[in-house]
């Protein structure tokens, strides 16, 4: 445990001394802000249209449905591309500096190394997500139209869990390579495939295959949190993905220990 914390602290220091964390966090906040801005603009347009046509007898557009949900769904796509930027240095940087040999020849387990590094990445993700959480929160105080608070919070938790799951998979991929570019690109491709894993299910016959694809899809699992419902099933799902990613990372590093 002590070794994990030491490695996590070192990782966090390294992230914030290099430009990477700043660029990734800033990029994420800027992109999210732009998407949020567009969603608000679109919502205003929809609101004006519905007010201009009162004879249609329908409820005005819901701020939650059109802005908050759309915002969280877009964030997931952005994360698919940004998270590999954080995880690509996992092994590559240590090898370049010669410190990988230091870690592997110390009396610490491979789990300590993997979990320590993961905790460092998780910390950066926590900061990233908490910063953009401010955007939907703004709606609570500034919107003229009623907005539900619960989905904003549950959506935040869902996105946070999804980021952690993506990070563990992306870290697993980068543990297999010593090249940062290969790690980043393969990480992105892996996360993108994971993101669209449910698409064949939409045209399938209802059955086991369709259920499995829907279960393993992060997009499908995020539907509930984004709409305001946190389920145990969702929590177990994201926790399982995190565990799988960490397990694969450990196996990859074990290869280095006993080549």
């Amino acid at each position, binding site marked *: 445990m002590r070794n994990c914390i030491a*490695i996590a602290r070192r990782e966090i*220091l390294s992230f914030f001394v290099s430009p990477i964390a700043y660029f990734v966090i800033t990029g994420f906040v800027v992109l999210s802000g732009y998407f949020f801005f567009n969603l608000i603009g679109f919502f205003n347009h929809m609101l004006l249209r519905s007010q201009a046509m009162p004879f249609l007898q329908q409820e005005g557009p819901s701020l939650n449905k059109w802005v908050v949900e759309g915002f969280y769904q877009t964030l997931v796509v952005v994360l698919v591309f940004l998270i590999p930027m954080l995880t690509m240095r996992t092994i590559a940087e240590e090898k370049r500096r010669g410190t990988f040999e230091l870690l592997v020849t110390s*009396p610490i387990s491979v789990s300590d190394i993997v979990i320590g590094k993961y905790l460092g990445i998780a910390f950066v993700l926590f900061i990233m997500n908490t910063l953009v959480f401010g955007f939907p929160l703004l709606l609570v105080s500034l919107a003229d139209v009623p907005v539900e608070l619960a989905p904003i919070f549950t959506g935040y938790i869902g996105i946070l869990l999804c980021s952690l799951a993506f990070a563990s998979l992306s870290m697993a991929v980068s543990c297999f390579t010593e090249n940062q570019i290969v790690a980043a690109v393969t990480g992105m491709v892996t996360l993108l495939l994971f993101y669209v894993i449910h698409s064949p299910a939409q045209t399938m016959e209802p059955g086991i295959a369709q259920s499995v694809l829907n279960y393993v899809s992060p997009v499908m699992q995020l539907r509930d949190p984004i709409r305001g419902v946190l389920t145990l099933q969702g929590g177990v799902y994201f926790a399982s993905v995190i565990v799988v990613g960490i397990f694969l990372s450990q196996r990859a590093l074990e290869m280095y220990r006993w080549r």
Partner: protein
Amino acid sequence: MIRVQHLSKTYGEFVAVSDVSFSADKGEIVGFLGPNGAGKTTTIRMLSTYMPPTSGTAEIAGFDIVTQSEAVRRSIGYLPENPPLYGEMRVVEYLQFVGTIKGVASKRLPEAVERVLEQCGLTDVRRKLCGHLSRGYRQRVGLAQAIIHNPSVVILDEPTSGLDPKQIIQIRQLIASLAEGRTVMLSTHILPEVTMVCSKVVIVNKGRTVLEEQLSALPAGRSLEEIFIECVSRSAADTGHVAV
């Protein structure tokens, strides 16, 4: 202490180390010599448990490098050819980090850090970033991280490479002071270093040991250079040790 018996390492067809055997006791400083490509770094990497041997055994401080690798890692201090520093950490922070991962208890860590800072002449640069240090100081920090957990065996891979003459003398003095109560293995190209610092010499050539001898037992009339040249000019077909 170090006991190496018939260690070998092959990568597919390529034989990096074919048969290395030697031993070193407490208090000895062993000079590990050989031409480039002889298999010195590969042997050292096996002893530090960075990679497993293809065959053969070795014991470090009484622990087997394959079956008891964690105990070996606790007992060993290792300085690779390039000191494994994190450039963005200050010297003190770096040593605290290495002390932690090498198993120094948290109560004893501050005292251990102070001890090695003093021993390696790093007190003036304790707050400097590792990335801003000169080559000589980097080597010293590398040495400090190798001894912070008070290991019984210290392995140094070319510790004076790239240093100026004054720094070389200082590092050699440091290495000589390390030997008290420890076994030190020093891999180097610099023959005078071995004569000045070491008590025993092991020469490897083309992946096998060709000489293992106490320095005092070497014939007085012949220099180490002559013996070294003779050892390494033998062909690979020769087996066994060189008679001196």
